[in-house]
């Protein structure tokens, strides 16, 4: 075994299966398609909605994940933790349309009629909730992993200095988990940006208000506007690349 062997297995697989499809997209860019897409107001609105909703969803995911890892760190024997742990990975296991349907039945007008004509459904809030639902697990896992990697003595010392578990958590644990918190946000954001089945079902997919970028691309494919679809898709790729670069940059800085 030497480096040449690893190279000859890893490199072809990586380039073929990961890089090449992206290149295929870029090669198929068409000037007219780009112009048409850039001029389409619905495109820009869907970009704006997607970014805002994904950021809010990721933030919400972080908040809940921070709560979850508090129980993970201090109260693993409690009922709260055990129940939460059981449900933690459930959203990821659900097919996305099912997740969307579940949210619709839970927060649609039959239960939340007081919120509006259609309950919480078919609003930007619904888009945020759907994105949160499918990306929360990632944030939780990241934070739990961050807690695992932390030196526990620090918490012990804080407690002997008078902190109760909550004080120790906010004053000492969270500040030291900066990396994990940031990763949790980025992962939640990326996952939210690429979600569409659950968002369509619960959010409504209305161009100009609740349509997200992923669905925009899909619609363009289906109605045959392939050029515009490719442009929007490449835009998605660029957005993801920016996100990933920011993540790597921060990692390097902290190394």
């Amino acid at each position, binding site marked *: *075994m030497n480096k040449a*062997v690893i190279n000859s*297995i890893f490199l072809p697989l990586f380039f073929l299966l990961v890089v090449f499809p992206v290149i295929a997209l870029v090669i198929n860019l068409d000037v007219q398609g780009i112009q048409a897409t850039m001029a389409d107001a619905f495109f820009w609105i869907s970009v704006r909605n997607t970014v805002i909703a994904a950021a809010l969803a990721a933030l919400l995911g972080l908040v809940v994940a921070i709560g979850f890892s508090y129980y993970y760190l201090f109260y693993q024997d409690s009922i709260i933790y055990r129940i939460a742990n059981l449900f933690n990975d459930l959203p990821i296991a659900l097919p996305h*349309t099912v997740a969307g*349907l579940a949210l*619709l*039945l839970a927060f*649609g*007008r*039959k239960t939340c009629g007081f919120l509006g*004509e*259609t*309950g919480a*459904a*078919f609003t930007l809030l619904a888009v945020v909730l759907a994105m949160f639902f499918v990306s929360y697990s990632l944030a939780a896992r990241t934070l739990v992993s961050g807690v695992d990697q932390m030196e526990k003595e620090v918490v012990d010392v804080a407690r002997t200095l008078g902190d109760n578990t909550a004080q120790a958590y906010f004053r000492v644990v969270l500040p030291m988990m900066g990396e994990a918190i940031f990763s949790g946000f980025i992962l939640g954001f990326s996952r939210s940006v690429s979600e569409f089945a659950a968002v*369509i*079902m619960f*959010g*409504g*997919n*209305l*161009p100009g208000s*609740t*349509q997200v970028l992923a*669905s925009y691309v*899909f*619609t363009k*494919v*289906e*109605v*045959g506007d392939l050029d515009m679809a490719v442009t929007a898709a490449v835009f998605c790729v660029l957005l993801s690349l920016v996100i990933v670069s920011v993540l790597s940059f921060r990692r390097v800085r902290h190394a």
Partner: protein
Amino acid sequence: MKKYLALCLVVLLALGMVGIVGCNSGDKPPVSQEGNQAADDSQQYKGQKLTLFVAAGMKKPMDEIIAGFQAKTGAVVSVNYGPSGGLYAQIDQGQPCDLYYSADWIYIDKVEQAEKLEKSRKFLKDNVVLAVSDTGAAKVNNINDLTKPDVSLVLADPQAPVGVYAENALRALKVWDKLGDNIKARPTTVNQVAIMVKEDQVDAGLLFSSVARGNELKVVETIDEKDSGEIVFGCAAIKGGKSELAAAFMDYASENVNVFEKYGWKAYE
């Protein structure tokens, strides 16, 4: 030793992938054969495989037709259900297909323009209907009621043919501009529209008569085809495919159009 192991891993991986590809391009086991008395002894297409693409909305009747055809001719049908547009895109990209059933004649035209058409046939007609939910029944009795404030409406997104026809109808009936923000959702498939109405998440929805009937929705108005556009479900045998077998299936389906009528379509006259 480790080198050997790595090589084995790669070979296994490659074989696995070939296996998956092979499995997908083929052989679904034949659909069960109960319920068809007209089994012809001729079995003239025994062992031959027909690759069939069908718009998802036609699944229930089409499953019956496929079972009957397999029993009668001995052929094996491999069916791919999907959205009409998506299926067309696959055909356009060169996916092997012998026969294509579309929920919108516009895609059959596209097959022709792409010069992949062997033979086509207009098969079924459908209408866009206005269906209401339990709550909606009190508010909406016809299309014009959709312009009332506090009415929530759902129709499909343009990527589903029914979304295009529904929008056409609303424009032709001069209602589109008066809807305000009553359109609350435009999901990507007709089935999602049906679910939203059925679960009373909206007051009304515009969808195909066949789908509405299939979901037992209350229909308050049927849209005339002069307003929505003629909704023709058609089929196309693809050039380069098994044309004789495809033609045999087309004929079989047409002979048994009553199965489709049972599910809410009308035969194309």
